[in-house]
């Protein structure tokens, strides 16, 4: 089972962003790092200068690098940027919007979680265009994940295992709206919330988080309890999506759990220690509301315990 570090979805200060990836290169036992602005094209210039040295350091550390792309492409400069990315990339591009496929021309690439791969028919078609790996949308239940892996063995199936789940993307920027700025003059206020802006209900239930034009869950996906089922279902890679916590430590926990050095309840407890203030969720995997945490673990005496 491979571990993939997904792109940072938030707007982190450039030096923090760079140091995060240096630490991933040095300390995180992940096989693949997908890197590059995915949510808002306006943020991309902040990281542009750091990207080459970061990629170099990741590769020197033995990580395979993928270049992520925009999930929503509407403006002309965004189209051009994606066309240039595909044309110039020396690494596989992670496609997050169907429009980037139009530039691919048979080039090997990977499909990110923002493309709607809901079934084996779509997976096979994407594979026929050169996709070698597909990260499935977070809302897919295990049953569907298994059917896709079985029906499309020619690609590596990856699931969104850890991190706040991306739920929606919009032309509107909610950070700008909340701070009463226009989108064009947003003053990059999303930078104030490196782990997303908490959204509660009027009755105080913790519900969602906002990241500029993107809406994510409040809860953090954690599919460790389903490791066995994922493996049996043909999943070959787990995606860890960066949150504002010690992601190198999260990667070590996942690595140890995958390699059998850490049992699941301990691994989940360890994740909780590393990322303490956000509840875990696995409901999507079971076809339940995505916010729910259903995980149980059967002890040797057969008694089921909640994790």
């Amino acid at each position, binding site marked *: 089972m491979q571990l993939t570090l997904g792109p940072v979805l938030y707007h982190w200060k450039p030096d923090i962003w760079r140091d995060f990836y240096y630490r991933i290169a040095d300390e995180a036992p992940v096989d693949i790092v997908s890197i590059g602005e995915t949510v808002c094209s306006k943020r991309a210039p902040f990281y542009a200068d750091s990207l080459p040295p970061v990629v170099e350091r990741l590769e020197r550390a033995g990580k395979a690098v993928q270049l992520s792309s925009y999930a*929503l*492409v*509407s403006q*002309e400069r*965004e*189209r051009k940027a*994606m066309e240039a990315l595909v044309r110039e990339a020396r690494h596989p591009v992670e496609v997050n*919007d*169907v*429009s*980037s496929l*139009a*530039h691919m021309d048979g080039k090997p690439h990977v499909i990110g979680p923002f493309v*709607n791969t*809901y*079934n*084996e*028919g*779509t*997976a096979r*078609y994407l594979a026929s265009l050169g996709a070698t790996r597909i990260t499935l*949308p977070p*809302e*897919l239940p295990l*049953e*569907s*994940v*298994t*059917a896709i892996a*079985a*029906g499309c063995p020619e690609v590596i199936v990856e699931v969104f295992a850890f991190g706040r*789940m991306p*739920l*929606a*993307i*919009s*032309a*509107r920027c909610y950070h*700008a*709206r*909340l*701070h009463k700025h*226009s*989108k*064009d003059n947003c003053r990059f206020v999303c930078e104030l919330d490196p782990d997303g802006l*908490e*959204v509660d*209900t*009027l*009755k*105080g*239930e913790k*519900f969602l988080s*906002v990241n500029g034009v993107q809406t994510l*869950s409040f809860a953090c996906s954690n599919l460790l309890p389903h490791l066995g089922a994922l493996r049996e279902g043909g999943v070959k890679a787990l995606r860890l999506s960066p949150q504002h916590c010690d992601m190198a430590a999260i990667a070590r926990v996942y690595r140890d759990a995958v390699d059998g050095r850490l049992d699941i309840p301990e691994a989940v407890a360890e994740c909780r220690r590393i990322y303490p203030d956000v509840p875990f969720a696995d*409901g*999507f995997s079971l*076809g339940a*509301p*995505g916010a729910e945490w259903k995980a149980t673990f059967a002890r040797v005496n057969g008694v089921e315990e909640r994790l």
Partner: protein
Amino acid sequence: MELICPAGTPAAFEAAVDAGADAVYCGYRDATNARNFPGLNFSYQEMRDAVRYAHARRVHVLVAVNTFPKAGQPELWHRAVDEACDAGADALILADIGLLDYAAKKHPKQRLHISVQAAAANPDAIRFYQQAFGVRRVVLPRVLSVHEIAAVAAATTVETEVFVFGGLCVMAEGRCSLSSYATGKSPNMNGVCSPASHVTYADDGDTMVSRLGAFTINVFRRDEAAAYPTLCKGRFVTSAGEGYLFEDPVSLDAASLLPGLKEAGVTALKIEGRQRGRAYIADVVRSFRQALTDLEAGRPVAASGLKAMSEGQSNTEGAYRKTWR
């Protein structure tokens, strides 16, 4: 410009045809279409009858098979495509790449449209679908301004269809899992958003609390009209205060933008609302037919005056004007 109207029942279908639609769009009574609500939509036989009714009056029928087939069980979706072709549908409205591939291979002569659920928001995405599956028309996402619609229309040889009236999706359509996060049911997988089966209203002393699954979507005073708790149209709390975080509760009414859309080279105007009754459909269709007649005759187009029929009783021109940009 063509006027494309919704129908959730055979009665609404006939109302739309009789009120002046150029084409009516509808779907089968199952998870294959994105308005999979109880008591709505068409059996295979009803669809055949509807096509016959429309064709006798020179009106086209567009069949929406625009959810994403369940992995391992594509048969229901394949059957919907085969049935619609066999029934004589003038076009199929599809969103899933695998299903487009199926339809293009199995029914190479059938006209295919890209559903708004495919979120084809720019000329590159449209070109991809055109080259891959020979699609003839794209229903554009509501994220585009009139200016952007014009740019898209100019950059593609695929026909464009845009929404001009009805419920407004705040998020990019077909790319939203908010509903399933709260309920387990999503537009993409189940053809439902914020389904009534998961809605509760609770009396809380002075207020009424609307909930979707385990989450409060809104709280109303006794004298306020309690809107349906569609997730993205709720009131929430952030560090910046409380309010309608994603969108104020309004419907889309782009009637006053019709001249701009015509100028932009748009082929067809689409009205949302397959869940609406026949009287509503007839009124909205008639109003837009009049607006189009005025437009073609070079007369000024009045704002459509359909305010009272709108969700939240107030209208917006939505992203089409982009005052927030």
